[in-house]
């Protein structure tokens, strides 16, 4: 009894070691799986993404540009910070249900729903002050002198009016949805 009540230091240490190893394996595995869902390969493994938004993104500067820097789906659509990333991943689990029930499994269904989906993403980006854009871009590091006249003017106005990237840059990586209203551009 006394032996049971008082475990040896050796066995306690063993238990701790096993716990640490299991913890590392679990945590590592969890993160590996989560990171796997952040890859472009994963995102476009569904035809809904591959045939629609991915094809549009491939025409844009975020896919191909002179400096060879590419922003993949998750760079814009998944936060880098762990807490925000987890929240986003949990929200995104709805998309699994959408996939199972086929809410956008044809081009027609996708087009019918894309304004609603886009508005949801624009709202998320606006609420976070375009946090994912700002992982790479910032007004501080922008050399407006080397920008074209139009971009320079627009960025000066955006700074003045405390606007955020997504206020103007809707449609920067995908086609703009049909049926947008003036409120969408406010």
């Amino acid at each position, binding site marked *: 009894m006394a032996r049971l009540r008082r475990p040896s230091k050796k066995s306690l240490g063993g238990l701790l070691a096993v716990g640490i190893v299991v913890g590392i394996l679990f945590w590592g595995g969890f993160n590996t799986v989560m990171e796997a869902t952040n890859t472009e390969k994963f995102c476009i493994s569904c035809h809904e993404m591959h045939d629609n938004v991915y094809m549009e993104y491939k025409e844009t500067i975020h896919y191909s540009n002179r400096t060879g820097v590419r922003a993949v789906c998750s760079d814009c659509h998944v936060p880098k910070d762990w807490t925000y990333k987890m929240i986003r991943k949990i929200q995104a689990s709805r998309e699994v249900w959408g996939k199972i029930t086929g809410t956008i499994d044809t081009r027609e269904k996708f087009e019918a729903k894309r304004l609603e989906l886009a508005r949801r993403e624009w709202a998320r980006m606006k609420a976070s002050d375009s946090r994912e854009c700002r992982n790479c871009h910032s007004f501080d590091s922008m050399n407006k002198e080397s920008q*074209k*006249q*139009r971009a320079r*003017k*627009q960025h000066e*106005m955006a700074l003045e009016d405390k606007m955020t990237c997504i206020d*103007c840059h809707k449609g920067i990586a995908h086609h*703009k949805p049909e049926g*947008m*209203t*003036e409120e*969408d*551009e*406010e």
Partner: protein
Amino acid sequence: MKKTMIAGAVGALLALGAGGAFAAAPDWGKVEAKDITLFYPGVSPLEWIQKGTEHGGARALRKGETCADCHSDETADMGKKIASGQKLEPNPIPGKAPAIPVKVQAAHDGENLYLRFSWKQPAASGAAKMDEANPVKIAFMLESGGKVELADQSGCWATCHQDSRTMPGADDAKKKYVKGGSVAEGKFYDLYQWRSGENKGFNGHVADTRVMEGGTALVSAEGKQDGDTWSVVFTRKLAGGEGDVTLESGKSYNFGFAIHNDNSAGRYHHVSLGYKLGVDADGDVKAAKQ
């Protein structure tokens, strides 16, 4: 005696007439030239430029910026995008020139304003002729005081609407107009045009509709083609009648111009953004006294 008097009166009239028609043009070699690149605008009427869902600059326009503030350096690129049908042109014409760089010179002598436009003839597209009679037409418009809504910012766009003729689905009889157009209230654009085939100048205006005649300010409009270079000189009185903008020293006016090249008509022209013409005053194009 009677004959002498009649001959004298006729002679005086002729001399006066000649004086009016052949006012002393300035030495253009000494007048500074402003380079303005006209571009092919496709279907981008006033309604389009104000539509935020399609024109990223609609917000800037609402804030009071001018078209030229954002676009003056890139009109040639805009022309390429539109003429090729990549944007704003549902009916692209193969071989249509995307842009026309023009030199603009202005001067006055206290009585008349002289405006000279020169440009190199772009290659012909070979498309069907819309205006058989006139291979080239050039027009300019003036507006005073920004009385027409958006005139200070958008130049000729304030007269260009989606329901005007040659716009998709528009009535063929509907011409240019300005919102609330009224000559009596000063809400109009003063319009001048020279047509190469007819070799004739026109002086009209754009108010509730566009009229090509009625103005009394135009003294002469003369154009010629030397090799591949066109030059057209308009002479107009600083003063004007009804439907003419009266020009005063020390003031600037809204100014825009357009070329119908390649026998084109209606919206198939090349246009400038909105600029300022300063008469002894600051402006994109300055008319100084000679």
